[in-house]
Structures are given as C-alpha cells and as structure tokens.
C-alpha cells in the first residue's frame, strides 16, 4: 500500500514524530468550551428554571 492516496497532492510527507495536531487541539478546546457553557445553560436555566418542579 502507498502511504498516501495521490502523490501529486502531497506537498510534503509528514511522519508520525514530526506531527503535532495543534489545530485540532484548538478546535476541540473550543468545542469543550461550547459544550460546557451550553450544558450549564440548559440544566440550570432551561430545566431548573422551568415551571412545575418535580419533587419527591
């Protein structure tokens, strides 16, 4: 098997040790932030702030 699909598109070969997915890390940290904020909003504002609290 060839390492990449089409050599023409590959400007440079990047091996395992020289690749740090820092862009991925940034994107995933942004996602983490969105998830956390949205969760807090949904749970504490939309749900706990809603009418007719179900109790024991």
């Amino acid at each position, binding site marked *: 098997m060839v390492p990449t*699909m089409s050599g*023409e*598109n590959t400007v440079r070969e990047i091996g395992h040790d020289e690749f740090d997915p820092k862009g991925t890390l940034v994107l995933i940290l942004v996602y983490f932030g969105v998830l956390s904020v949205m969760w807090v*909003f949904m749970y504490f504002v939309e749900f706990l702030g809603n009418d007719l609290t179900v109790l024991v």
Partner: protein
Amino acid sequence: MRRTTQGGILVGCGVLFVIVWEIRSALGLLAGVDTNPQLYMLLTLAVVGLTAVALAIGLIGLRPEPPADEDAQ
C-alpha cells in the same frame, strides 16, 4: 489574492448561512432577544450573499485547494 472556486463559495456560504441563522435561536434562548424573523432572514441572506460576491470577485480570498486534486476521487 486568487479567486475562490465556485465549489468553495458554495460550501463556505452554506456553512455561513447555517451559522448566522442559528445565532438567532441562540439569541432568543440564551439572551432572550427576540429578533424580527423576516428582518433577520433578510440580514442573513445579505451577509451570505455579500460574502459570496466578495469571494467570487476576489475582494476577500481563500486559497483554493491545489488544482491537482480537482477531479481526484
């Protein structure tokens, strides 16, 4: 700057449309801001349309993918 390809404009503007339109729901739910739907839609279409035109004439630019890939699949 090189012009963005038609395909790139289509993909970019599709994503931009969804993002701008979803902000209306976010404003409504999170901030309680009730924007006028017709006006907001017009605004969204204007933003997306202007971006599309700007990309098409090269006013703003994204470097397209290397041409060698155009028909690879």
